[in-house]
């Protein structure tokens, strides 16, 4: 790093449920399980928590939006977790804005110890991807009448053009999927923790939005992840170490991802980039400047994103391997890598990590770093 950076906040605890296809338990219990695990990891109890950031919204298009069943509001979580001392509490709507909201509240002195909770399920309320309104207004009036909606149609359209312009093929998508699925075998939370995908399975899978098949789409799942965050100065008391939040910036469609908070590509040792659909990986890599336009497929084919490559990517298997937690799984893995608690997935020399939460149309870039010398190196 070319100059000292001052951390915005610290992640001192992380907790997760298993990521499952479905489970009859109320979603509120997933939130509680993840939050209790995060607090235990941070060595604190509910009486220490004075801040809360949640993202309750159920992404299922047919969601009943019932608190505790398919969504978890701050009121519900506070009651079940006995968070009786909350001085700051918000439920956010923009995907991935937990980190910025939490860091802002901590650095403004609105609270000292904050819980971030994201619990979500896709499997309640009917077919998760089916829009069924008889009439449609707003921006969707130019999309839904054509059947332009879920399941990655827009990204299939993007990748078809990319194939045309740059000579990419389904082999390139398969390389992304295969690496994610192989890495997920070392992720005990992952929905695909026990099975990778063969080339034959991939190539013979029926298309969903061609050239994408179901393996190019992350699985809609049920699960929860929670983080404990504190001001940077309090990080040293965390019993299992801390990951420092170094930067956090929103990225609208098309904007270059880097630099973010002064961090350039050369400053980043690994990345967890949201891979809800496999073509995202190429888009992110090119927007990071890892490869020129049209060349990210070559970077991946040459092993550039492997754990021993120049930019280890989605070391937990990404959402293609773990399931569709909409980015908080990526954040959890970034925290583990920076704390040295990633177990068999641990990278040896990674001191910084870029986490990208959201889709290429609307996302947050978060830079994490190891605590200690890495964050103040000249």
């Amino acid at each position: 790093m070319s100059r000292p950076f001052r951390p915005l906040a610290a992640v001192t605890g992380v907790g997760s449920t298993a990521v499952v296809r479905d489970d009859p338990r109320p979603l509120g219990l997933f939130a509680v399980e993840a939050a209790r695990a995060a607090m235990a990891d941070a060595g604190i109890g509910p009486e220490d928590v004075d801040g809360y950031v949640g993202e309750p919204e159920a992404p299922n298009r047919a969601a009943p939006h019932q608190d505790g069943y398919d969504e978890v509001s701050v009121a519900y979580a506070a009651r079940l977790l006995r968070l009786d001392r909350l001085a700051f509490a918000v439920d956010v709507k923009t995907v991935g804005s937990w980190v910025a909201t939490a860091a802002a509240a901590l650095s403004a002195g609105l609270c000292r110890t904050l819980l971030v909770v994201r619990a979500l399920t896709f499997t309640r309320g009917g077919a998760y991807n089916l829009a069924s309104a008889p009439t449609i207004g707003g921006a969707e009036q130019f999309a839904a009448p054509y059947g332009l909606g879920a399941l990655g149609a827009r990204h299939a359209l993007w990748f078809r053009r990319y194939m045309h312009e740059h000579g990419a093929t389904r082999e390139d998508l398969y390389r992304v999927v295969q690496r994610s699925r192989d890495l997920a075998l070392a992720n005990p939370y992952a929905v695909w923790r026990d099975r990778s995908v063969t080339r034959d399975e991939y190539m013979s899978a029926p298309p969903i939005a061609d050239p994408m098949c179901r393996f190019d789409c992350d699985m809609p799942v049920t699960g929860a992840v929670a983080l404990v965050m504190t001001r940077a100065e309090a990080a040293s008391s965390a019993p299992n170490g801390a990951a420092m939040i170094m930067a956090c910036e929103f990225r609208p469609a098309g904007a270059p991802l880097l630099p973010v908070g002064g961090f350039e590509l050369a400053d980043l040792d690994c990345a967890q980039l949201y891979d809800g659909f496999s073509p995202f990986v190429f888009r992110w890599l090119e927007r990071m400047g890892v490869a020129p336009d049209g060349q990210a497929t070559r970077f991946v084919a040459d092993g550039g994103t492997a754990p021993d490559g120049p930019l280890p990517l989605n070391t937990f298997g990404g959402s293609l391997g773990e399931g569709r937690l909409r980015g908080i799984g990526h954040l959890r893995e970034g925290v583990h890598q920076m704390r040295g608690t990633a177990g068999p997935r641990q990278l040896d020399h990674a001191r910084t990590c870029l986490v990208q939460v959201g889709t290429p149309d609307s996302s947050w870039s978060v830079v994490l770093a190891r605590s200690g010398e890495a964050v103040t190196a000249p």
Partner: protein
Amino acid sequence: MSAVVGPVPLPDAASAGYWDAAAAGMLCLPRCTACARLHAPPLPLCPECGSEELVWTAVLGTGVLHSFTVMHREVVAGVTPPYVLVVVELDDQPGLMMSANLSDGPTDGIGIGDRVEVTFEPRGGVRLPQFRIVR
């Protein structure tokens, strides 16, 4: 009266001119009087320069296939798979893109760069601009 298939667009102040023109068999888009650029789909102001001075302008209704995908799952009730989603670059202005379906005519062997022309599909009380391959 033809059967309604899929959701029916709800015109609003920014889009009524578009759907009115389509009902009359014309593809009209907003043109900015300040910077002279067309845009699609219609927005309440010019996405290029921010001006709210827009006039409805009939466009040629022809273009080339910029990209396409065949959807094999139902994601919008009533729009029954398989169907072809297309992005068309209109002839009127470089980079002017519209999303629609290939409605009638051939769908086999289509490719990026194929010439297309607009056609209109009755849907509820409106007509939906669609495209077909011109060979």
